[in-house]
């Protein structure tokens, strides 16, 4: 085995087998390290997200105000603990820093959880699925111009709901799902994109977001109350407020910050409490989907008609798993091959089929199963070579990680090109509006058939792998 340029490593140490480039020097039982390190799925994630800690933490691409939010909270709380607590502990009770501390921990933890959790992103459809859907839809339009928006109607609890087709993700969006143009992802139970936490708020992180704003309102109100008490106590005896402020300048800063934020945060908490109790999302509320504004008799089909049950199901329901497998390894095929054209065009299928012949079976099997995790069961863990394909249907079970996701769908090259300018405009517009209004989604953010996507779609080189998906359909 003369693979001198490769480092010999212990296969046991590898979490997955390393991908091999096709012109390999023959395979041996003992896999050696590749010159190219194995890539994880987050590295080729097509949406506009940023990943840290090797895929464990994710944020929206534009997380500009999150540092500001953190800074405001840390500064205000810091000043509170430094300036007000000592005085209040001496004159009142030592519970005050304890309560403040607990609230502060809650606020910071839930803020970070909201920001760093996957909000419920739906992975994009694999080329096979997209082609299948295309077949089912009557596509009589010319290939070079975008067909009109497609919708599908379903009946949910005796209510007609329209499902829209997402051109970017190439699938019919499930109910309550919306495509966030800032993050370029479809998010389940999309609430809104919150710049203050730097992430979308959706199915998976709504409860964190709600806990964050509720605990933040408690914290702000608490600090406001304590600072007022502190200043009042200091100003006693006719010494005056100015004197008190001079003695404790930090309190002045806190007072200003808390005074201006407490109203908006309390308002926001109240609004979201109403949403939780009626099982609505901000998106639906703003659009008036279930308010019967069009004159029809529409009711919210997702509501359980009972405030308590609604609250429980939204806040205490089971925690759904992340559908994007961020830390999984990419299967063997070369990811991000930008050469393939738009998969919606049937004529290209023939060309792709030629490529598919060589890679088809292997590729499909690999995409059908999560090969990297599975090959641990087979000592010859080499998913690449056509001869020994360890991925097989019987081992669909991934074992350790239940968070399996489409391996094909995520393999698209990261970042589509056209969106930046329009997104910048919407973002600057949002920064200038008030804090409370920020949480009301700008309709431009979550237009289901995003006006920005037409620019990207025809040029979207999203066909990650060369036709590995096209074979089976013809």
């Amino acid at each position: 085995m003369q693979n001198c340029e490769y480092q010999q490593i212990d296969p046991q140490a590898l979490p997955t087998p390393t991908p091999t480039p096709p012109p390999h020097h023959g395979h041996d039982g003992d896999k050696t390290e590749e010159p190219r390190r194995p890539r994880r799925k987050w590295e080729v994630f097509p949406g506009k997200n940023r990943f840290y800690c090797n895929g464990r933490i994710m944020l929206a691409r534009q997380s500009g105000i999150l540092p500001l939010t953190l800074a405001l909270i840390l500064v205000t709380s810091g000043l509170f603990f430094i300036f007000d607590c000592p005085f209040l502990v001496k004159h009142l009770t030592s519970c005050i820093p304890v309560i403040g501390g607990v609230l502060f921990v809650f606020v910071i933890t839930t803020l970070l959880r909201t920001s760093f959790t996957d909000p419920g992103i739906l992975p994009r459809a694999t080329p096979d699925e997209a082609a299948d859907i295309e077949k089912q839809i009557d596509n009589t339009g010319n290939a070079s111009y975008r067909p009109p928006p497609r919708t599908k109607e379903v009946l949910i609890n005796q209510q007609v709901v329209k499902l829209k087709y997402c051109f970017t993700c190439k699938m019919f969006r499930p109910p309550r799902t919306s495509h966030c143009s800032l993050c370029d992802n479809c998010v389940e139970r999309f609430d809104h994109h919150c710049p203050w936490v730097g992430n979308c708020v959706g199915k998976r992180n709504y409860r964190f977001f709600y806990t964050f704003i509720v605990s933040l309102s408690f914290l702000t109100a608490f600090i406001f109350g304590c600072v007022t008490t502190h200043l009042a106590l200091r100003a006693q005896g006719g010494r005056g407020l100015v004197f008190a402020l001079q003695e404790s300048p930090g309190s002045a800063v806190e007072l200003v910050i808390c005074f201006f934020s407490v109203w908006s945060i309390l308002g926001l908490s109240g609004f979201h409490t109403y949403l939780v109790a009626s099982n609505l999302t901000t998106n639906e509320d703003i659009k008036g989907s279930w308010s019967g504004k069009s004159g029809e008799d529409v009711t919210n089909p997702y509501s359980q008609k009972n405030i308590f049950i609604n609250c429980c199901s939204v806040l205490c329901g089971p925690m759904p798993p992340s559908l994007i497998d961020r830390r999984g390894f990419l299967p063997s095929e070369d990811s991000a091959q930008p050469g393939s054209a738009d998969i919606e065009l049937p004529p290209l299928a023939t060309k792709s089929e030629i490529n598919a012949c060589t890679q088809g079976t292997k590729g499909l099997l690999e995409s059908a199963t999560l090969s990297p995790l599975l090959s641990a069961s087979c000592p010859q863990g080499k998913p690449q070579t056509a001869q020994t394909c360890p991925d097989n249907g019987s081992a669909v079970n991934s074992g350790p990680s239940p968070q399996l996701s489409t391996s094909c769908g995520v393999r698209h090259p990261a970042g589509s090109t056209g969106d930046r300018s329009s997104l910048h405009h919407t973002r600057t517009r949002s920064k200038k509006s008030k804090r409370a209004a920020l949480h009301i989604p700008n309709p431009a953010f979550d237009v289901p058939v995003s006006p920005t996507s037409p620019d990207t779609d025809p040029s979207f080189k999203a066909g990650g792998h060369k036709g590995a998906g096209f074979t089976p359909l013809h």
Partner: protein
Amino acid sequence: MFSQTHSLQDMRQQAAVAAKVFIQRDYTNGTVCQFQTKFPSELETRIDKQQFEETVRTLNNLYAEAEKLGSQSYIEGCLACLTAYTIFLCMETHYEKVLKKIAKYIQEQNDKIYAPRGLLLTDPIERGLRVIEIAIFEDRSLTR
């Protein structure tokens, strides 16, 4: 298991995927994860309707169990809330446990029923819980 794995591998190396069928989601009960039980016409020659419907129905029941709003999920939710959700970092949620059950069930079904008929079920979680993907292999002599 190991030898079986390799024989299935061999089978697949000989066979090419002739078609793929996608079982879409059924939204009539809301956003809970359920799949349509309608029997696709492409599978008519490969497997019986009963068997197929049984598989999909079991999967639907398992997903319903995962998303069930029962006392266990409430306790889990309340406990998580009290610990500022840090408990999710160390504990496996009920949903994840059921997903493992589902993965095992699919593997079993593939081994016993679908692979011998030249079909392959893909765990829906790998497709973002959008579809159940069934790959139909070409009808060559698979028993060699």
